């Protein structure tokens, strides 16, 4: 084992240091996880990390643009066999305009979502997927300075993408719908049935737990946000049911749905402001609800399987 010579002794032993740093790290984790007390630390560190982040994502962005360029070229060549020679001559200009049109379409697609609500959202560029294999998050290029706040819903042209969970100075993290345990209150378009969709932790799949076997849910049904949570505005597309498994042996049906939004492949998303809070619940009922919540504060998500 390593033991410094006494005449070269420098401070506490490695083991003492390890113990100290490990304790500090664990304390930090608890403070961050349980109390969310370290937002200022995170913010200031994110300012430090920001320029490096930008610099590091440049090559990737350029590569992305290159691949875009080449796939578009492929398609054009197929479509315009007889103009092949001409296209090759003018391909550079043509590709760029194609890309611009695509982007404009994307942005226009988002506009209807905007008109549905009183105050408008802001469009943010998706910078990269969060580099954390344990969670499903994306990082967008709008932050505290642009007015993004934790809890804001994030949508794309066809539906809900997720929710802002951590805000940096110039960037924010959006937890995707598919993140395990990320819940959205939803409503079935066909018959108004209310439910809660939650992420499955798998790519492109949501679960709708706690729906009784008798519930009227069919394959292909559309879920939209119900808006009763006061976080998501009502009427945003959430998911389409892809499989309903009703087994009489279980209390609940097993329902899997596919997110409506391109949760994993967007270049632009829109951050919506949190809607105006609903009027407070009647006092007596609120008390009752609190009591019930105290008995079962979190609920257990995975029973009945």
């Amino acid at each position, binding site marked *: 084992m*390593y033991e410094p010579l006494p005449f070269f002794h420098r401070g506490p032993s490695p083991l003492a240091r390890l113990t100290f740093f490990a304790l*500090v*790290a664990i304390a930090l984790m608890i403070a961050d*996880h349980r109390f969310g007390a370290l937002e200022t630390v995170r913010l200031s560190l994110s300012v430090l990390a920001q320029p490096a982040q930008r610099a590091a994502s440049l090559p990737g962005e350029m590569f992305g643009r290159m691949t875009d360029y080449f796939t578009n070229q492929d398609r054009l060549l197929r479509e315009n066999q007889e103009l092949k020679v001409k296209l090759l001559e003018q391909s550079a200009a043509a590709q760029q305009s194609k890309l611009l049109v695509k982007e404009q379409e994307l942005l226009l697609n988002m506009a209807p979502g905007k008109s549905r609500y009183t105050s408008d959202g802001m469009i943010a560029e998706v910078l990269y997927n969060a*580099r954390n294999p*344990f*969670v499903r998050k994306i990082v967008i290029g709008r932050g505290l300075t642009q007015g993004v706040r934790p809890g804001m819903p994030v949508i794309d042209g066809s539906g809900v993408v997720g929710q802002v969970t951590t805000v940096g100075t110039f960037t924010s993290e959006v937890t995707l719908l598919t993140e395990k345990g990320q819940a959205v209150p939803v409503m079935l378009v066909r018959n108004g049935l209310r439910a809660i969709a939650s992420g499955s932790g798998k790519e492109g799949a949501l679960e709708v737990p706690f729906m009784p076997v008798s519930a009227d849910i069919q394959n292909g049904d559309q879920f939209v946000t119900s808006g009763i949570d006061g976080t998501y505005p009502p009427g945003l597309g959430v998911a389409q049911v892809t499989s309903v498994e009703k087994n009489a042996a279980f209390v609940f049906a097993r329902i899997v749905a596919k997110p409506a939004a391109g949760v994993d492949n967007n270049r632009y998303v829109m951050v919506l402001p949190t809607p105006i809070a609903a009027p407070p619940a009647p006092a007596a009922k609120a008390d009752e609800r609190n009591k019930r919540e105290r008995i079962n504060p979190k609920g257990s998500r995975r029973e009945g399987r």
Partner: protein
Amino acid sequence: MRAADLTPVARDVMKRPAGLGFIFASFVGAYLLCAMPWSGWLLLARPDFVLLALMFWTLHEPRMIGQGAAFALGLLMDVGDSMLLGEHALEYVLAVYLAQVFRVRILTFRLPEQTLHLAGILTLSSFVLVLLNLVLGADFPGFAFLLSPLFTALLWAPATWLLYHPSVRRRRSESPS
């Protein structure tokens, strides 16, 4: 059989210290490599360049880089990788501690054996990270997470070439013999 070998245990005891600027630059470079937009399967297999640089300087410049630097860099990585503050810090501090404990032993070996030692240390510390996340309720990411420490260890030889040999080369060219 090296019965009459009188070489000192650590062969680099008289090495000239690396400049602080060079160390700092290596960390910046490592952070940039880590901050590239890795995703999906590649993210699980991403070599931890920052940890690699940390291990290198812990072994070769133990007076400058130790657990304090590991902790600070770990926090920075936590922010960059959107993890809980302290996860990477704990991982790095543990890895650097192991490197400090086995430093003299590791440095007696040549690069292949050093790589093996590194693989062991890095795998152990990455287990800590996965365990932490499992405790926090994440799903098991699959055994692909073992690829990351493996790739990091495989980069040990290139890293040594990149970080160690410039100073040696410079010294050789400066020395009169």
